[in-house]
């Protein structure tokens, strides 16, 4: 589904990302972990064609993302707060995203209503603009908006950060369901190792822009990751 070839990104000569080859098959839930500055967000931004690669390219469904825009209809994402429109209410925001993705109000309502317990009564019918919601609630709205319009690829950068424990658990279930039931390719990055191992079938560790580990998740994975990151700390 997503193929990365000879991809690198340099800022003023500093290499921040360098991936020779990475293949993510359709329907895989894919986790990206790494310390700050490892290149997680850079990789996602390249995937969304928000920044230009220095070398190489990414193809999504055989479409090279920096040449054609045809990947947009089946891709959705929530990277950070700049994906929210602060002066809309949550509903208006969902409808707006829905319109962009060819969904009418009824479609959007049907989808959004599935997430009532995820919202915990703090998002819908609040008569509040998104900019006035707490960080956690903003994140909830952004994540659900990324699910509108039956995307085949969903990219979530640090979705667990800022969420309360209950919501974290509910989000894990949502992500798992997406991969299992609908065959959606989900790409998630996180600093929380246990969440990622819970959710993802495969975990890639980035360090200073390079892939240093590529693990198929098993019972041992969390331990392996923990000892790896403990090790990098000591160095």
């Amino acid at each position, binding site marked *: 589904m997503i193929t990365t070839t000879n991809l690198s990104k340099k800022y003023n000569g500093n290499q921040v990302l360098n991936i020779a080859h990475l293949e993510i098959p359709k329907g895989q839930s894919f986790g990206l972990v790494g310390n700050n500055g490892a290149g997680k967000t850079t990789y996602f931004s390249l995937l*969304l*064609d*928000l*920044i*230009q690669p220095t070398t190489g390219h990414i193809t999504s469904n055989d479409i090279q993302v920096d040449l054609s825009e045809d990947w*947009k*209809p089946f*891709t*959705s*994402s929530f*990277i*950070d707060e*700049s*994906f*929210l*429109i*602060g*002066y*809309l*209410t949550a509903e*208006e925001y969902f409808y*707006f*995203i829905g*319109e*962009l*993705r*060819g969904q009418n109000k009824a479609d959007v309502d049907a989808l959004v209503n599935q997430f009532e317990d995820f919202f915990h009564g703090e998002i819908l019918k609040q*008569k*509040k*603009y998104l*900019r*006035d919601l707490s960080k956690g609630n903003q994140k909830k709205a952004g994540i659900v908006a990324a699910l509108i*319009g039956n995307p085949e690829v969903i990219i979530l950068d640090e979705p667990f950060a800022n969420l309360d424990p209950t919501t974290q658990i509910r989000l894990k279930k949502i992500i798992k369901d997406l991969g299992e039931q609908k065959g959606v390719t989900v790409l998630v990055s996180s600093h929380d190792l246990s969440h990622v191992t819970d959710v993802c079938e495969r975990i890639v560790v980035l360090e200073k822009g390079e892939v240093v580990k590529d693990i198929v998740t098993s019972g041992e994975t969390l331990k392996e990751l923990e000892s790896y990151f403990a090790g990098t700390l000591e160095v």
Partner: protein
Amino acid sequence: MGFFALYFIIIFLALGVGMFPMLKKIFPESDPFVMFNSFIFYWILGDLVIRFFFQKLPVMNVKPLLTLPLKRKKVVNFVLGKSALSFFNFLPLFAIVPFGVTLIFKDYNVSVVLVWMLTIVIITLINNYLNFIIESLSAKTELSFLPIILLSGGLFVLNHFEIINISELLAVGIQSIASNPLYLVVPVLILVGLYIFNFKILRDKLFLDSSLKTKTQEVHASNLEWTKKFGDIAPFMQLDLKLLWRNKRPKSSVWMLILGLLYGLVFYPNPEYQDKEFFFAFVGIFITGIFLINFGQFIPAWDSGYYKLLMSQNIKYKQYLKSKYTLMTFSVIILFVLSIPYVYFGWKILLAHFAAAIYNIGVNTHVILIGGSFNRKKINLNERAAFNFQGTGAVQWIIGLPLLILPMAIFGIANWLFSFEIGITVLIFLGVLGIVLHEKLMKFITKKYLASKYKMIAAFDQDN
């Protein structure tokens, strides 16, 4: 808004330079210095009212300071001290200094003039701190602007009907301070008193849950179904309309319409301008295009806060730009219709406005959209609007001048070489040409935006 700040600076400069000869001409019998002082009362009143609506204490900036090991006293002093550097306090200087220099050249006593200038600066600062007191006291009431209106209105009435001749008293006071610097103690004491009062108010309020709390706005949801008529650009139209209505800064560009519409009254009633036809074109471009200029100069920076979202979503740049174009075009048409009453000052004016409107729709909309593709400055939608230069860069100036000057020049030359009618025809022709070529131009503009996509994303991601 950059335009308006410069506009005010120029007005004040002109006022300062021209004040002396003007007063001499209107009141040949009296001393211009004394005359000027008798007007200071009105200036103080006007200044206070304007400050009340546009100047806010920069209190939100102190949030990060609260957790630092700084004495609360220091933080409060910092906020109050910083407010003294506001644009509002510098603006009068542009008028006071040239006027003072003129006085010195006219052989007024140098020390008197210097003390006088100092007095005015102190009065400006008094206004500065008085305003914050009025604001904090009236903030609790429902109609928060009522106290200031009552206060300034009351003083004005008292003065106007000479119940208490405040302007006279004030003039005498300033006059005697100027001639005897010892009296400077009085305004300085007033200033210190106001500062201390402000200090007390602020010290008690500087907590996260009181004045530092961000206000949450009630949602005004409106059904914008009518935009559906515009087809595939409807979602963007709705977004733009909400953008305009729900954010402080773009909202002010809507209020500017009213000011802009009245702009003609500055020139048209004056018989001196009756035969200066090239001016009609300028005023026409300005009146029918004020929204276009104000709103257009910050495309696409208005959307800078969520530009990444737009760029990763399934949207067509063309629709996005078309929505902005449609909005601007409608504003021109509406403003032209609203400006029809100017026909009172002559049919030529109406004709010039019509030609200017066509030119705005056909040419200026496209020019400003092209200019937008060079826009690299982020805008924070929710910051106060007046005299906010955020997002203003060289682009706005370079684009702004041809928007206003070029049509005036084209019309002026055609008018001078041939006739008024030819001038009008040329403007209309250019406008129609732009409208005919609209699709082509939009294609070109869209390409420009696509080409600078990465640069814009990177620039909007940064806080400038």
